[in-house]
């Protein structure tokens, strides 16, 4: 039940945020401070998500060699500017193969 509420609130909230972008007057964005903070917020959050997804398991640090190997190969792919598909497939293949070994 809680999960359904979460799913519905997330869905409604995300849609509302998108619609809001089309409704707010463009001049708000012309205020440089506002624009800058809104542009930088995802950078901070994505940086955090990378770390959390790589080394956390719930509220514990969890070092999984296979996951880290996959992430390392994925990171190299990002660094080499590989297309998204290659990044995703390389990471999954590496982690899968390390687990098989």
């Amino acid at each position, binding site marked *: 039940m809680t*999960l*359904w509420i*979460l*799913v519905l609130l*997330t*869905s409604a909230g*995300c*849609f509302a*945020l*998108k*619609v*809001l*972008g*089309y409704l*707010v007057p*463009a001049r*708000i*964005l012309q205020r440089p*401070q506002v624009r800058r*903070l809104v*542009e*930088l*917020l*995802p*950078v*901070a*959050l*994505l*940086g*955090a*998500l*990378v*770390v*959390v*997804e790589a*080394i*956390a*398991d*719930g*509220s*514990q640090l969890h070092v999984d060699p*296979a*996951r*880290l190997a*996959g992430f390392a190969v*994925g990171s190299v792919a*990002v660094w080499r*500017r590989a*297309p*998204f*598909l290659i*990044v*995703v*497939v390389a*990471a*999954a293949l590496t*982690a*899968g*193969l390390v*687990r098989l070994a």
Partner: protein
Amino acid sequence: MPRDNPEAGVRRDAVGVGLAVGAYGFAFGAASVSAGLSAWQTCVLSLVAFTGGTQFAVVGVVAGGGAAGAALASGLLLGSRNMLYGMRMAPLLRVRGLRRLLAAWGTIDETTAMAQAQQTPALARVAYWWTFGGVYVFWNLATLLGALAGSIVDPTRYGLDAVVPSAFLALLGPRLRSSKLDRRIAIAGAVIAGLLIPITPAGVPVLAASAALLLAVRTRGRPS
């Protein structure tokens, strides 16, 4: 293949983006059911919320046993960038009424990036709608397949857990190259989250990473 028609080229690229996003959608579907969401709940997120980073963030917190409030908050914070995209797309798409709601629904990283990359407003509109269509179809099909596969087998066995941090890094990649401030903010966010993982409930490290924005506030007043 002749390259006489730029519109056809844009349409091809749009479908290509859709296919690439599909692989990520499969990982999302599998991650979501292994976090404990049902296949239905997983599909509703992809169909309605339709914004990958947010969806991954929400199921990530659920998987870690975090509170629903923390999951919702980190999802919405991450989804707030779509609002910024909407503000940029509105003057380009010039849509009204129901079409405006539809345009808003499709306002995500990929559609905005594809539209902004075009030379003319007309091509930008073609890129926008075709990318929306391509990503929507493949993202949702892949979510469904991933959710079904994830309910049968353990997705970590196939390395899908390594896909998630790599995909977030891929989203971050262009920003890391764009400016020094972006890099500092991303690193600060990562450090804050890393330090908080063992001492706070799941979801809190990502929310707390917004504090990295203080770096931008602090440097604002400086002469450059």
